[in-house]
């Protein structure tokens, strides 16, 4: 029995310690912002590998999610004779929820896991140590540009996801199931609120961007530098990012729309 509590205690201490290290890590990244601004080419290179390479995954997923929303929306709304509101339904669910959440989950799976594996491998092959011995700080040179690239890319990718979703909803609802095209667009335009919907969705995507980039880079940097260690770290990135995204989504939604 005592051993059981000891284990719980140790696990708690370990997680608190890890959170502490992760926080210091984050502070170091933030204080490297000047360094990154002075070397825009480092950032641009990472924007390409973190952002641009995730583009097609996000765009195509957005399109299909939107098409499914279109089909399901028409099916549900037609029982109330309200097909003309399809545009609102599709756009609101994408901009408020599905865009940020699904976009961030896909991003964690594609870009986050790749970042963890890359950093973990650089650690295992002593590239990070080597850099330190050359008096170059890997937190500034390697980690910070990747963090800011992730932080900038994800909100843009989320916007693309939502836009493609709205087009997908149009294709399925209007082109396939003959909802009135004018109604689809005009109802959407009339009812989607800039502050309540678009800004809130953007805030979510920015917070998810921070979470995923931070988790992915820290797991890589903190990985046990062996092949098994890197594979565990990569898994942890995907699992922890997904939990973090879903939990924060609930908290943010409660703050923004719910519990007054």
């Amino acid at each position, binding site marked *: 029995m005592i051993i059981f509590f000891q284990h719980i205690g140790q696990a708690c201490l370990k997680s608190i310690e890890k959170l502490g290290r992760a926080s210091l890590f984050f502070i170091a990244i933030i204080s490297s912002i000047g360094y990154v601004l002075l070397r825009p080419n480092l950032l641009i290179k990472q924007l390409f590998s973190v952002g641009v390479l995730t583009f097609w995954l996000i765009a195509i997923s957005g399109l299909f999610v939107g098409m499914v929303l279109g089909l399901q929306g028409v099916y549900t709304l037609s029982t109330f004779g309200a097909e003309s509101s399809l545009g609102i339904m599709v756009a609101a669910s994408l901009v408020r929820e599905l865009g940020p959440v699904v976009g961030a989950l896909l991003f964690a799976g594609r870009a986050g896991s790749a970042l963890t594996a890359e950093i973990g491998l650089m650690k295992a092959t*002593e590239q990070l140590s080597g850099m330190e011995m*050359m008096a170059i700080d890997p937190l500034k040179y390697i980690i910070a540009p990747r963090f800011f690239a992730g932080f900038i890319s994800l909100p843009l990718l989320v916007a693309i996801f939502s836009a493609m979703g709205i087009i997908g909803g149009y294709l399925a609802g209007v082109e396939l199931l003959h909802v009135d095209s004018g109604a689809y667009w005009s109802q959407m335009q009339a009812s989607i609120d800039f502050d309540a919907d678009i800004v809130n969705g953007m805030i979510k995507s920015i917070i998810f961007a921070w979470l995923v980039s931070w988790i992915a880079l820290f797991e890589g940097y903190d990985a046990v530098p062996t092949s098994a260690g890197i594979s565990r770290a990569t898994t942890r990135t995907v699992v922890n990012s997904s939990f973090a995204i879903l939990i924060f989504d609930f908290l943010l939604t409660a703050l923004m729309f719910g519990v007054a």
Partner: protein
Amino acid sequence: MISIRNLTFSRGNRKIFDNISMQIMPHKITAIMGPSGTGKTTLLKLIGGQLKPDSGTILVNDQEIHQLSRRALYELRKKMGMLFQSGALLSDMSVYDNIAFPIREHTKLTKSMIRTVVLMKLNAVGLRGARDLMPSELSGGMARRIAMARALALDPEMILYDEPFTGQDPISLAVLVKLIKTLNQTLHLTSIVVSHDVEETASIADYIYLMSEGKIVGQGSPEELTQSDSEWVQQFMQGQADGPVPFHYPADDFSEELFAL
């Protein structure tokens, strides 16, 4: 130039170094030898300030390395080249860029001056022709020579080699041995070679420290060590399987274990 005093360092419960002291002479090649797992790599990381000792001091250029501010430590590291066991070349840069990298980061040299420096360093290790290759296209011996060129990029005063001879074919081996010797002489470097390859290391070292289980078990010039009457030193220098260091990891009696069922 480098002096280690009463150094103690542990990993978990295991004492890797137990109160050791060493003196590294300037402009000479000092070898630190011992079986795998004695803590040779750990010692280099302590000298480079990447690990902190439990107690004791390490002086580099008369500065106590673990008391330095981060900035001062980074300044000192520019005078210290380190050759990692794996080479540690940056895998997303060409050979040329790998060597230019520390120069670009730490100096304001123009493009053409950087080019001159990089080609000189590559020429010194005989690999000027390999400048456009990527690290993944290099053989093990070539990667180590490129890493050497990179360690020399900032014209350091001292250079630390971690197992430079391990896993090399006989020709690369001869090349590396010769390179370490000539670089040390022509550039007046202070070199530390950490290794368990007795013959190669003894052929170039001016002074050797032999380590085992956290202690220094022998020291002296290569000649002195081969004459040594310590059994341990003899076993290590001549590469005998059994002796004071037993062939068997501690275990129960074999016949008892076999018939234990």
